[in-house]
């Protein structure tokens, strides 16, 4: 089977979407520079020309409004930002306009705009280059929020996002860009709003997304050594949330851990716990758990950052407690993979 990495899958999604519909246009700061948004947009301008693929002024807010305007007259813009943090300058146009345009004009117009935002961690990114703000966007009615983990889903979901008639926030974790997996050659779509069970299991439901799905899969291997068979749901879409898949899994396993690579309070993990508490309380065998960043900003020093990000071992430890397993730590027993904490793995050499 054909294997490509996540970043290349994003590139292919652009190409397929732009070949399929001549009204798809792509822009972002640095979209056609030599680095091409971590390689995800390389070659697009050569393929589709400078009318459809163009660099932009450092004007995140206006360029979001420009995307809205161009979308009101038949185009499907895909805007990208190399850091989610930069896009905070555009909250006015996103929240006041894009999210509300269809609603506040009684369905007269739609805003089919896709906004790619890249998140990451490690290598001293610090407080303003490391935020994962999916819950901020998911809080706003009218927006869709997509956060793929696998290269296969990245391609299919980006194509769906571009073809969707609503504003879609498409969040990519930088550490996934180099991860490879099976990706079909052709154009295909993964539906927005549907999660995927990446590993079936009967003892606990672990709900994760994006890079934390990978950490959860690693955690499930640790848990297996303790006789715990975890079911892992990769959300793929944060909003609209696939409630049915989560609830039927919780009903089956009776336990729930929600993993979110973001600030803790009022976050995606909290929403999933609320969902299970409200709609499946009687099936829970023990209190559900959140595994997230602490409610504190990201430090820059790698000495401090080492303690900041939850890893597989932290997910496994939190879950073990739910089964009353204490005692020897997994580091002691050699079950914890010895991965560096500020890079995804030893093969990763940037760009950051």
């Amino acid at each position: 089977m054909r294997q490509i990495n996540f970043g290349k899958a994003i590139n292919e999604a652009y190409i397929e979407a732009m070949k399929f519909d001549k009204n798809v246009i792509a822009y972002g700061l640095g979209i056609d520079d030599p680095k091409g948004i971590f390689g995800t947009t390389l070659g697009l301008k050569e393929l589709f020309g400078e009318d459809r693929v163009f660099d932009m002024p450092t004007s995140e807010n206006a360029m979001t409004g420009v995307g809205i305007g161009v979308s009101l007259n038949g185009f499907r813009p895909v805007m990208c930002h190399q850091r989610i943090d930069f896009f905070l300058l555009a909250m006015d146009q996103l929240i006041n306009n894009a999210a509300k345009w269809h609603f506040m004009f009684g369905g007269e117009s739609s805003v089919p705009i896709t906004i790619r935002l890249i998140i990451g961690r490690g290598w001293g990114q610090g407080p303003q280059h490391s935020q994962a703000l999916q819950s901020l966007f998911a809080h706003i009615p009218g927006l869709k929020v997509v956060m793929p983990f696998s290269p296969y889903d990245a391609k299919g979901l980006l194509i769906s996002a571009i073809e969707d008639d609503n504003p879609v926030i498409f969040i990519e974790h930088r550490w996934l860009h180099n991860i490879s997996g099976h990706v079909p050659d052709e154009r295909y779509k993964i539906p927005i709003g549907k999660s995927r069970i990446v590993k079936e299991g009967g003892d606990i439901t672990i709900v994760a997304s994006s890079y934390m799905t990978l950490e959860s899969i690693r955690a499930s291997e640790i848990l297996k050594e303790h006789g715990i068979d975890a079911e892992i749901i990769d959300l793929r879409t944060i909003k609209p949330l696939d409630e049915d898949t989560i609830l039927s899994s919780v009903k089956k396993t009776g336990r729930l851990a929600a993993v979110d690579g973001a600030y803790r309070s009022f976050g995606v993990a909290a929403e999933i716990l609320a969902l299970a508490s409200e709609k499946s309380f009687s099936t829970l065998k023990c209190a559900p758990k959140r595994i997230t960043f602490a409610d504190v900003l990201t430090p820059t020093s790698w000495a401090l950052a080492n303690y900041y990000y939850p890893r597989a071992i932290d997910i496994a430890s939190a879950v073990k407690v739910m089964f009353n397993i204490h005692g020897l730590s997994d580091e002691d027993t050699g079950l914890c993979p010895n991965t560096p904490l500020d890079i995804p793995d030893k093969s990763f050499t940037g760009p950051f």
Partner: protein
Amino acid sequence: MNNFIKKNPDISLELFRRMKKIRLTEEKIAERYCEGKMRCPTHLCIGQEAIAAAVGFLLRKNDFVLSTHRSHGHYLAKGGDLKKMLAEIYGKVSGCSKGNGGSMHLIDKSAGFMGSTSIVGGTIPVAVGLGLSIKLHKSDQISCVFFGDGAVEEGVFYESVNFAVLKKLPVLFICENNLYSVYSHLKVRQPQGRKIYKMVEAMGCPAIHGDGNNAVEVYEKVKSVIGPAREGKNPFFFEFKTYRWREHCGPNYDNDIGYRTEEEFIFWKKKDPIPFLEKKLLKEDVISKEGITVIEQEISKEIEEAFEFAEKSLFPQQNEVFKYLYDECAQ
């Protein structure tokens, strides 16, 4: 100006008619607002009608217009449906935004009125995006956005003008400088002696200024750039001085609350754009006093019918609040 009226009696009369329609509609809204049936923030443009009337008349039906919270005049002058506007203010399902918008969120795409929103400066980049769409479609339309003097204090204004100049987009930026952002006078918001149009000119955008209470002047100045704008030569910026008669939001006068003086109001009221043009129309024999009465009666009848339509229309059903959260037609 008298020369213009002599040479263009039909245009002059149409400018008068459009101003009159806006004025009479808003006066009726003000008169009936206390009935408590128009339950949304309503910003009247009485006193400022000339700019809307002239620009709305100059643009083609398929040109785009975007506007602000104070948009009744822009909507009507561009040909927006009066019945649907009033039904919207009444919160009825027959309103132009099905009751989801109200006075501050008007739309009539069939007239090229693409939407008005209530965040200062919020539609400026959207108009620029529509300008980009025109350029990409290689059509000869124009995208026009109205905003006030407060909007040029927003960062998004500069970002938008910059992009429009960079890409040579067919955009008309129309700044209605009425001296106030809510109750804050220009002098506490911008340095003394600043000329807004000069500042914009320095950004590479040709900028023209004029008397916003003189419909003929607005018409002639905007008309002079319509050709180059359609050809995609560059965007154009206009600053027209004008004055809001009533309170920032609502049907009343508020000269007594202390942020502006009665003298200032009277000074501007004497510059009322409607009698100003009316006198000249009479002088040049473009129309008689009786003719003006007929126009007023026609407009009043139309307004009366529109109010009746709004009153008789149904309110949206409870479940309709979920109907337009997402557009799922194509899914």
